[in-house]
């Protein structure tokens, strides 16, 4: 087969470009550590999520600390995030690693924190797990970016990132009241 000289040069350049792309992506994953959404979140029954009887933190979604790490449990349903939508923003501290665990109670949704790398599909039966660290305090937009029904366009929310010292103070108050409640329970027994 006869291949023209210019064509060979072009072919070589094209292969170089392709290999270069693959190399930059591999570097982004391995070197910089941009993790992929994978299967680490595991499976869950969408029906149980809908009825809040999964026996997991999804029955009472919100921010919790697990093994010293902040974990945010979010349930997406037509047409809101719990927490996230309206006056229940997701509150996390700046500068800390935060893991989001998101699942759906009904149809396929999206979970995207605007202008960040937090961007995952939310599929009934599956738990999406993404980790991130917010360096800048502030309010970030949260949207469902997959069509999920007639009022899909109303399904948004926000993530409030607060300075760590402020966050710890509030968190302590919450922990304190939790401890009080526990002490109370203990006293009752």
């Amino acid at each position, binding site marked *: 087969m006869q291949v023209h000289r210019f064509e060979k040069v072009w072919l070589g350049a094209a292969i170089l470009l392709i290999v270069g792309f693959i190399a930059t992506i591999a570097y982004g*994953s391995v070197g910089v550590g941009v993790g*992929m959404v994978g299967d680490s979140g595991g*499976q869950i029954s969408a029906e149980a999520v809908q009825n809040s009887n999964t026996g997991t933190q999804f029955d009472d979604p919100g921010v919790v600390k697990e093994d010293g790490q902040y974990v945010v449990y979010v349930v997406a349903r037509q047409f809101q995030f719990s927490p996230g939508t309206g006056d229940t923003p997701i509150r996390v501290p700046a500068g800390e690693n935060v893991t989001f665990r998101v699942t759906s109670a009904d149809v396929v949704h999206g979970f995207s924190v605007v202008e960040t790398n937090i961007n995952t599909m939310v599929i009934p039966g599956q738990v999406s797990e993404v980790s991130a660290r917010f360096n800048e305090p502030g309010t970030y937009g949260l949207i469902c970016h997959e069509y999920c029904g*007639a009022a899909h366009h109303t399904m948004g929310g926000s993530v409030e990132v607060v300075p760590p010292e402020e966050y710890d103070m509030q968190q302590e108050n919450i922990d304190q009241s939790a401890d009080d409640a526990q002490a109370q329970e203990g006293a009752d027994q």
Partner: protein
Amino acid sequence: MVFVDSYPKTSKLVRSEFLVSFIALGIGALFGVIQALHRTGVFRGFVSSADYYTILTGHGVLLALVFTTFFIAGLFTWAVANSLERELPQRIAWSAFWIMLTGTVLAAVSIIGGIVGSPSILGHDLEADVLFTFYAPMKAHPAFYIGAALIIVGSWVAGLAYFKSLWDWRSENPGERIPLQTFMVLTTMLMWYVSTIGVAVEVVAFLIPWSLGLIQNVDPLLTRTLFWYFGHPVVYFWLMPAYLVWYTILPKLAGGRLFSDPLARVVFVAFLLLSTPVGFHHQYTDPGIPSGYKFIAMTNTMFLLLPSLLTAFTVVASVEHGARQRGAKGYLSWLRNLPWGKPAFAGCMLAGLMFAAGGFSGMINAGMNINYLIHNTIWVPGHFHLTVGTAFALTAMAISYWLVPQITGKKLKQRSLASVQPYVWFVGMAIMSNAMHRAGLAGIPRRTAEPTYDEFAFEGVAGTVGEMRIQIAIGGFLLFVGAAMFLIVMADTLLARRGGTLSVNSNIPEPLSGADHSPRILDNYKLWTAIALLLIVIAYGPPLASMVADGLFAPGSPPIPV
């Protein structure tokens, strides 16, 4: 001899296929301009925001599925008859047409049901507000799924007519190389057979029985994986016919001939091999799929750039050769010696140019980690309006100016309107797509009636959000005008009386480097199909096996109304 006089039966078939595709284009374009004005907030008087999604479904199905499939059927029918010099087997080809048309009517009626109050038909609400990806567990009327399945089955039968033609030709011409156009058609169809298995299983085995209530649950992850097994190759099903035009007809329109037959065959074989084992790149952000499989899909996707990059070279080289045949000199000044006033030539060239831009934004999408920034933002439709919406659609319109006279024997009418039309489309798309890409960088989502939220406001990264909205609306309106101009030219031509001598014909000049130079192994379909299937087994076998291993219908979801 005019094509219609040589092959009157096949010409009638092509005319029927084009007619359906043009009607779909008209309705789809109308839906498109309604959306462009609605989501940008310029005018929201046509439909409510809830019904916006019905219009969006119609736009996607009519343009991405109906307009494309029927146009491709027409183009392929012509290409096979033209290059094998015979009428197509009529009974098979017409059965294909009627099956696809029945499917189209079923799907279209179900979608339109959504804007006329979803009446109950056969125990199910007549609606299909599920968009053209129809992700379960959102449910449409069973007729929608049955219609979609019939369109696919019809296209399979159409492929049978092309293969039958080859076998008949073979028995009369033993030992001869498959003519290039037929080679391209059949390679595309083999890719199509291999890739449509995914959506066929999804619809026939899962969604139809589920929508009828025969099974309770489907696994949303499994069904969308089967969809995307088909969902990326389908874009090559749109693109390869455009390549057929760019490789075999465009050089002639430029006054020259194709640079290399062997490389054209190599490119098409590469598409057959690599189009399918890449589908996971549409699921980079899906939970439940290990990232290793996504990485494999990413590398395959990047190598899929190769045939397109080779095409860029060959097409430009062939057109340059054409310009030099017309007396052009210099490194770049040959560009001036090309028939930019001829709509068929100008449209194909502008489509190719835009495809280059679309290719670059596609490389961003394919980049597994930078994709996070733009996944499911309006960047993505910005990208595919350059590819299917221009590389395919503008090539289809452009080549119709050249082909419709030959399948009717009628001279092209409204020539001045026709010669401006590709430029209107190009400018409209440049404005709209550029703004969509930039809006995507700001995080503005796709598939939404009102991209504004109570909790926060988007901030433009390059330009302001308000300016992008206006540009999307203006661009969308220009595209509607462009589609209308095309349809006026076509209607006037089709309704005209026959008369005079045509200035175009279907003779395709021999390539500079002909089929004799291309290794015979390139025509070995069995070998290439076997390798294609092997690559699919490697890319899809383990993940599909693990999705099925936990139960075919689990984790399951019952139908949920939208």
